[in-house]
């Protein structure tokens, strides 16, 4: 029994460490569908506040931005507080026009020494660096069930 354990241990003695030296040697581990900082397409956003409504951490506010946005008559765009955000991507999923997406910018890249800088205005959200990973198309659109037990009530009933 002990020899078996020794053989197993010797196997691990000659292997390289599993841990990685981040960020000195390698970049942080990122997958193709990782949910990182949001990126906003201001030419698509209609200012409907759906992202604000579904945010479970209440980190999205709608703020006014000056400029020429014909699809957004009230000129209201989401402002996201990244220090509160849990990166659940509900805002991306429920955005009716697909204006919000998520990028690979995550982890220590979001750390700041000043808490005020985590509050990203709509114009800053447009300029987030990093590849776009999660968009509205990545979410499965539900099929309408053949028979659902009861018809859901409408709001206010």
């Amino acid at each position, binding site marked *: 029994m002990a020899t078996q354990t020794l053989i197993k241990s010797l196997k691990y003695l000659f292997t390289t460490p599993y841990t990685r030296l981040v960020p000195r040697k390698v970049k942080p581990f990122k997958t193709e569908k990782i949910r990182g900082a949001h990126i906003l397409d201001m030419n698509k956003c209609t200012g409907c506040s759906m992202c604000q409504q579904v945010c*479970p951490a209440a980190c999205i506010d709608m703020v006014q931005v000056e400029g020429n946005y014909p699809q957004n008559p009230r000129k209201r765009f989401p402002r996201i507080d990244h220090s509160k955000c849990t990166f659940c991507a509900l805002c991306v999923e429920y955005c009716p026009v697909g204006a919000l997406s998520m990028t690979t910018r995550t982890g220590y890249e979001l750390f700041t020494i000043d808490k005020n800088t985590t509050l990203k205005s709509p114009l800053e959200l447009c300029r987030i660096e990093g590849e776009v990973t999660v968009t509205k198309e990545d979410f499965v659109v539900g099929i309408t069930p053949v028979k659902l037990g009861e018809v859901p009530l409408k709001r206010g009933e």
Partner: protein
Amino acid sequence: MEGRNTQIVYFGPQHPGVPGNIAFKLWLDGDRVVKAEVIPGFLHRGFEKMMENRTWEMNVTLSYRFCVEDPDHLEIAYAMAVEDIVNANIPENAKWIRMIQAEMGRIASHLFWSHFIGGSIGLRTPAYWAVTAREEILKWFGRIAGHRVYHNLSVPGGIRYKLPADFKEHTLKVLDFVEEKARDVEEALLKNSVFKARTRNLGKLTSEEALMLGVTGPVLRATGYKYDLRVNAPYLNYDKVKFEVPTGSIGDAYDRSVVRFKEIYQSISIIRQALEEVKLDEPLRIKIGLTIPPGEGVARVESARGEYVIHIISQGGRKPYRVRLRSMSMPLLTTVVDYILSKEEITIADFPVLLASLDPCPPDLDR
């Protein structure tokens, strides 16, 4: 207790022998622990109340946040309870993927547990190998669900994200890696004479005692009582796969460890069977409206720590009226520890091993 020759020691929440953010007030007679009192509340956030104030779709992101080690079962249970209210039949494909998610979570949780018990005994080396295997599972979750620990994959109605094209091949590769590591850890940990000496005959429970104390999960199965919700009250597609329910004999800390390692292999076998049934091009989700009709929904799942029950009452509208969670760790940290201490001679050195062998999750107790 005070008048006798006893000493009071506060144990935790910063002590490395405590399984998380919880403290104990211990009465010591020499080095024997005579009595222990749990001091909870370090992680109390009022989840049940918070869930009443958030909408149905928001609650998914909240439902799993009170157990880091095993969040998948909590998430699946919430989704199942909401589906129970509307009597929804989700696609078969989504059920298989939920099973894969749940079993992956169980493996990750048990592997992480071997790190805790290794640490409490001083056998850290094999425990680090286990964390390597868990890391591969977390990376797998990162690819499938976008995040490593909190996945947000199962929502009321089915599965939220599209699956990658190489889902099956990648999962099989991860499973092979995990199985190899788990066998190495089992060899080095369970067959180690120090581990045996420290855990055998420690914290014994009989089946009757365990049932009386309200214990479920691996701790109950280690006593020899064959009770597993996946077999006794099957949910998802657990009645369509073949697997065994590992049981122990005398219900001590060593038996619990053996049962947990056997469960890892059974979970791997379940995932391999479920993978054959997954069809990547078939639907994964049905539409459930943003409002839920009045009614009650209950879901019971066999989580890595025992039976987890969630009961939701809806009065119609956008938010639940009442959410009740039955935690897995409540009996483990309160009644079981008290009972074992009153019956057995546990020293202060064995107390962390006893706690680790029960594998409680203190945030789940606090909620």
